[in-house]
């Protein structure tokens, strides 16, 4: 017996002997398992005394001498402790693994985490709590092994690309399915969900987990669970941050004098008779276009309730200014999550979300000659204004052919106003303790109005205005019958049956006007347009599904799950409408076996394995019908006549694309789960690809939908989380995840290669991307560039100082026939590395994210470097260092050469897109309780995002590309892509 214990007994004895039933004050502190003080823990006794812990985890309560104190805190097990004999109490709360960690939402049900047999990761909102996130993808990026997130566009509300275990499909959307509180988002996107409302996300990665979603689960599923009220705890939270944005990188461009000299050299003429006159008169277009913009985000939420009625209500506001001037997005959102328990058997819930988004000029900027591209190619010799006093812009430059980018950004008036809503009602009825029925009816809707005005600067001879309205809504009804029973304490059986129907409708109309008489009414009076045209569209698709699933566990050691889903899709014809999608998986909890239990440092060990087959119907409605293409012909007049051109042939034989996947995984916990490791291997084969094959130009071009080809993804994922240091005042938690994915096109039917459509015509003049057997998706197809000739090449007719390309075809001429596979836009490795340090009231987060092994075709860079049909004279500073007999090491061709050819479509402009980025570093401080009185907590956070990037990429941002986020066959082309900013952020969190 040591001294401490002796003292302890002595005190108990003394107190007991003095006054057994007196009231007295008890002090204490409450900490978590890591020794970190817990704030806001409810401390109470049976007689109604109650208090909360402060920021240092301390409490003070007056209770009866023999009272028992209850310590309760969300996510932790309720702890009881007798005060008898204690005046200073140290309580350590244990995390309630049963409550928070052990139950995982798996789609049409929940499962104990320890019983999972599929590859499912959970991301709790705590993981990114100190990172200022504006949207869900920012919260996800780098956090979960096997889930890659790329910010394709840095525009406010811009596109992000999310992939789970690589891309399966050539033509179809490879984005995962997003299910929010049971409603599969169809009309809305994940970005439309307010990230601050999210409690946790489950990422279903393998086929055995996603097969319950059948045709919609092929790309993985992200199940989002929003926050709910907790009985007895009324809470008000306010979280806000303000960010200041700056461009991460800028191009190093010529000044006006150099530009003029180079233009003269290149043409052999005096394009600029006196270059020296521009000394000190350069226009720095990048500085004009990139703004030091600000972003702010505010979220206020109220939650609480009683046993029978719980609520979570939140309001949020985001005002995000883009890096480019005059681009902006504002969001206002409301959410109300209500849960009611009518009686022991019947409960119902209602979630309502309404969100308004106002966007300005934030449309897809990724096109040739957009302000980003024009901004770095516009001649520095040009002025912004012809007459600054009157504001008369200098519209056109000597080069390029694109309009003044500053004017384009300033004078553009393109707006979008959208109203998004989710209405989700659910009723659950427990027939008995082993059988329940839940009926879920959900509607997600997006009503969007666009409006634009073309003023005299955008077109001096033809002003115009237009408006458009679109409405997308999806109704989903899911009916789930769940059976769960445990027999003889050994057999645990859960069976689920589902009947579900979904229908999505999209309608739109647009009114376009030109020859607008005056812009003084903005876009509000379309009638002022001298000529007008209208158009409208409609599409609808439906899905009917039935699913059954059985999960069985024997002795809490051996686990098995099997499911079968049958889907009917309106997108296919006749008997091709229906597809069956089975799966099964097995698990073995080794840690329940005695021989593992004997190994003390292993706290958890499970082996998992699964197989499943999933479908993909990700084509647009009517894709197989061979619709005619509408055109509007003017007949040379100001009004349109509708015409139709022949479409591609109908393809009624087209059927489901299917993905079969096996997954092998291991879950390991060491030292009381202080270290947890999850590792998975998977192999996915996607067959009968829904492929839009290119129709030869002589047959009119366009594409033909076929079921051909096969794509394979195999890979390995590894995630480790460790509570590395858990000292009294200091802790370090770290998490590292890495995923290797190998993507390969295995077959394309009788073809070996299928070209992707051309993009950026005028700059890029042939197909530079292709789908080829044996190569990953997003393969580049380019002429190999070897640098610069140091000697004349008589065979090919080039001189020293000219670009040297490889004559792959051997026809003694360089051309597009010499293109070869030159790498791919598909990354091979993704990683995330997160660190949380706490010291007393301070918390430091350092988070790195990286992506490796992908190439980017940098057409933006190319536009600054060589003359093309749009850009007459280069602006890139490094091209001044061109080849001469005295400068043989140079990589830029002699601009004065008459024999030189510049193929933009060459490997010269293919760059390594790998990067590691310091996504977030934040320091937060919890204000001591003593200073804040009634408030339960105040936290202040200062952080920086994207402040450090390690990359060889020569563009603005290796994440930013102009190719659509939905596609992986068209990928990794930077054609004036909108870069993400680096930001400095100040955040505040207050809880009442």
């Amino acid at each position: 017996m040591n001294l401490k214990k002796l003292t302890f007994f002595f005190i108990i004895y003394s107190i007991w002997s003095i006054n057994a039933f007196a009231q007295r004050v008890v002090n204490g502190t409450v900490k978590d398992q890591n020794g970190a003080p817990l704030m806001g823990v409810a401390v109470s006794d049976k007689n109604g005394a109650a208090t909360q812990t402060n920021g240092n985890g301390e409490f003070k309560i007056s209770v009866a001498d023999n009272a028992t104190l209850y310590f309760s805190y969300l996510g932790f097990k309720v702890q009881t402790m007798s005060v008898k004999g204690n005046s200073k109490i140290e309580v350590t709360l244990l995390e309630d693994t049963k409550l928070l960690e052990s139950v995982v939402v798996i789609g049409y049900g929940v499962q104990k985490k320890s019983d999972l047999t599929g590859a499912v990761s959970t991301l709790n909102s705590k993981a990114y709590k100190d990172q200022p996130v504006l949207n869900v993808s920012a919260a996800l990026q780098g956090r979960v092994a096997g889930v890659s997130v790329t910010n394709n566009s840095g525009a406010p509300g811009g596109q992000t690309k999310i992939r789970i275990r690589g891309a399966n499909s050539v033509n179809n959307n490879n984005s995962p399915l997003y299910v929010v509180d049971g409603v599969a988002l169809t009309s809305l996107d994940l970005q439309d969900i307010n990230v601050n409302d999210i409690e946790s996300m489950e990422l279903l990665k393998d086929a055995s987990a996603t097969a319950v979603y059948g045709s919609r689960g092929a790309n993985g599923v992200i199940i989002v669970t929003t926050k709910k009220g907790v009985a007895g705890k009324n809470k008000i939270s306010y979280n806000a941050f303000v960010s200041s944005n700056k461009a991460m990188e800028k191009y190093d461009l010529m000044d006006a004098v150099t530009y003029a000299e180079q233009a003269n050299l290149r043409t052999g003429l005096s394009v600029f008779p006196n270059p020296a006159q521009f000394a000190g008169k350069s226009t720095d277009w990048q500085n004009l276009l990139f703004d030091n913009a600000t972003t702010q985000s505010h979220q206020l939420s109220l939650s609480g309730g009683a046993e029978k009625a719980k609520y979570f209500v939140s309001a949020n506001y985001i005002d995000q200014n883009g890096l480019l001037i005059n681009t902006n997005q504002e969001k206002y959102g409301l959410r109300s999550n209500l849960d009611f328990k009518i009686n022991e058997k019947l409960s119902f819930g209602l979630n309502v979300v309404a969100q308004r988004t106002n966007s300005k000029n934030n449309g897809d900027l990724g096109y040739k000659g957009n302000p980003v591209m024009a901004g770095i190619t516009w001649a520095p010799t040009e002025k912004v204004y012809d007459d600054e006093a009157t504001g008369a812009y200098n519209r056109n430059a000597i080069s390029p052919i694109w309009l003044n980018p500053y004017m384009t950004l300033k004078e553009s008036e393109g707006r979008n106003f959208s109203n998004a809503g989710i209405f989700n009602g659910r009723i659950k009825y427990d027939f008995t303790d082993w059988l329940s029925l839940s009926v879920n009816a959900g509607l997600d809707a997006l009503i969007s109005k666009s409006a634009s005005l073309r003023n005299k600067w955008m077109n001096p001879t033809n002003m115009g205005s237009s408006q458009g309205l679109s409405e997308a809504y999806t109704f989903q009804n899911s009916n789930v019958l769940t059976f769960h029973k445990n027999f003889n304490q050994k057999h645990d059986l859960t069976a689920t049956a589902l009947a579900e129907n979904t229908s999505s409708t999209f309608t739109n109309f647009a009114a376009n006007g030109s020859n607008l008489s005056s812009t003084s009414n903005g876009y509000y009076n379309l009638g002022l347009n001298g000529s007008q045209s209208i158009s409208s569209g409609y599409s609808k698709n439906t899905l009917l599904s039935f699913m059954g699933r059985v999960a069985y566990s024997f002795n809490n050691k051996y686990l098995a799950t099997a499911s079968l889903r049958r889907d009917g899709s309106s997108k296919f014809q006749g008997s091709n409408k229906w597809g069956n999608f089975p799966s099964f998986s097995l698990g073995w909890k080794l840690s329940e076996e005695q021989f593992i239990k004997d190994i003390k440092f292993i706290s958890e060990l499970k082996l998992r394995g699964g197989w499943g087959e999933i479908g993909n119907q990700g084509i647009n409605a009517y894709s197989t019908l061979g619709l005619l293409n509408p055109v509007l012909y003017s007949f040379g007049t100001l009004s349109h006549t509708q015409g139709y051109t022949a479409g591609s042939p109908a393809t009624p034989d087209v059927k489901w694309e299917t993905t079969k996947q096996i997954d092998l995984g291991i879950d390991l916990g060491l030292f009381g789960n202080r270290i947890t490791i999850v590792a998975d291997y998977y192999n996915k084969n996607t067959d009968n690809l829904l492929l839009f094959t290119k129709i030869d130009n002589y047959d009119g071009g366009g594409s033909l939908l076929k079921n051909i080809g096969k794509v394979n993804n195999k890979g390995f994922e590894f995630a480790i989380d460790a509570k590395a240091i858990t000292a009294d005042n200091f802790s370090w938690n770290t998490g590292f995840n890495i995923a290797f994915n190998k993507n390969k096109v295995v077959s394309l039917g009788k073809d070996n290669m299928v070209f992707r459509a051309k993009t950026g015509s005028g700059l890029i003049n042939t197909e530079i991307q292709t789908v080829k057997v044996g190569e990953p998706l997003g393969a580049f197809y380019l002429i190999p560039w070897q640098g610069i000739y140091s000697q004349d090449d008589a065979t090919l007719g080039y001189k020293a100082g000219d670009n040297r390309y490889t004559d792959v075809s051997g026809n003694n001429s360089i051309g597009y026939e010499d293109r070869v596979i030159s790498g791919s836009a598909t990354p091979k490795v993704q990683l995330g590395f997160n660190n949380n340090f706490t010291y007393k009231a301070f918390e430091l987060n350092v988070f790195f994210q990286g992506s490796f092994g992908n190439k980017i075709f940098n057409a933006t860079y190319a536009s600054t470097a060589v003359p093309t049909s749009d850009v007459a004279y280069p602006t890139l500073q490094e091209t001044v260092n061109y080849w001469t007999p005295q400068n043989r090491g140079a990589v830029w061709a002699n601009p004065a050469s008459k024999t030189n050819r510049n193929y933009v479509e060459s490997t010269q402009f293919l760059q390594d897109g790998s990067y590691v980025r310091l996504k977030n570093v934040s320091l937060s401080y919890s204000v001591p309780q003593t200073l804040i009185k009634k408030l339960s907590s105040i936290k202040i956070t200062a952080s920086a995002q994207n402040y450090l990037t390690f990359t060889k990429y020569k563009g603005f941002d290796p994440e930013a590309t102009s190719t659509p986020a939905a596609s992986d066959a068209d990928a990794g082309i930077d054609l004036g892509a909108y870069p993400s900013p680096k930001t400095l952020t100040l955040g505040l969190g207050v809880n009442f």
Partner: protein
Amino acid sequence: MKKYILILIVALTAATSCKKSFLEEDPKGSILPKTFYKNGNDLNQAMTGIAFTFNGAWNQTGGMSITFGADDITTFRGGNKISFSDFDTFQANSSNDRMAVWWNNFYKTIKSSNALIINYPNATDATAAERDNAAGLALFYRATCYFFLTRSWGSVPLITEPVIVADRPNSTPDKVYELIVADLKKAETMLPDSWTGVKIQNGVNIFPTAGSAKAMLASVYLTMAGWPLKQADKYALAATKAKEVIDNKAKYKIDLMGSFADIFAKEGKFNKEAVFGCYYNNNAPGGVWENGSQMGPPNFMPGEEGGWDEAFGEISFYNNFPAGPRKDATYRKTYYLGNDVSKPVDYTGLLRKHPYFTKYNDDISYNQTNHSMSDWWGSHTVFILRYADVLLTYAEAKAMSTGADITAYDAVNAVRGRAGLGPLTPALSPTAFRDAVIEERGWEFAGCEPAARWFDLIRTETVGKATLNRHASEEPLKAVPNDATHTSYWAPLPIVR
């Protein structure tokens, strides 16, 4: 309670699952092939689609790059003009990006034409005349596309049905011409003499008429008489067809414009000289690509005025071009450096030191006063066939078949007279008369008109000969085409056919 919920579920699922139509597609906003080509309105829409698609081949200079080997037009070899210069200097390869504009758009037009040609008999809700007119139009466009295709590339895939076939073989020019003639012979009987409604603007037919088909057929026959088919018997057929057009010009609402400049004036975008044209209006709402034209103005303007220097006139040809109103309406005389009217220069004061064409300049986006532009896009009409072409076709064909009689002289002298030139030397031999007409055609259509001099040079096997006059200041030729073996006469087939 249990009961009600069960009933609710059963009802909900039953309502959707048992409804057979739940999974059927009904594209209410779109047109299905099986319900199309049924009535007169469908046929109108199909015709509109064909004309619209064809216009996509002519709203930019790209396809015309194929004709840059002629001695009337050139460009500089540098920057982004290399693909044009490659044709100008006889070194184009199959990767040439500019020529694909013609290939792709002509074949797109053929695709929609084929669909209409196959389907028009099913349009039982349309009148017989509506059916014939529609089929005639499709046949006309198909023939016209093949005419340009075979003159540009020689042997090309010959597609007559809207089906997709991989690795199509190329058909030789004789097979292609066989189809062209057959199509146009049908078209001239099926097309109306004149259209109504939107298809006629300011008294000018926007859609091709029977007259357009006859004129096109005359042009086709004349070409067949020369290289590569060299079927001399076609001269007589060409003369006959052209004569039919000339004799019925009032019926087809076509004639020679009085002033050459008026043909290309902004105000005259619909004018009677057009036997067949492509019509644009950049100010039509919605910014539809095929409704605007980039054929002008910037292409044929110097950089000093804000233009693109896409092409300009060859010096020798310009020097040889007889002065008069036609020359004044073909080339610009005065240029304003930096659009400053106080700095007028002639072409020798320009960077490129070449005279610039002016036919596509006069447009809504072009300021005549200082030669500045408000837009890259314009609305200028592109004349595929002008009435002057019919007259010159007749003159040449008549001379080569039965000798240059008074009607042949009248035809060519009508064109010369308008150009401010005196009558052609009388009593020329057929070949001397032919050579004079070829020269006349060169001047008449210079400046990037679709009736390009290039096509005259290849059919008369004089491409190499024409290069002999090339001015010393022009970009040197990579090779001189051989008029006996016809090197460089045809463009290389696009690498992606």
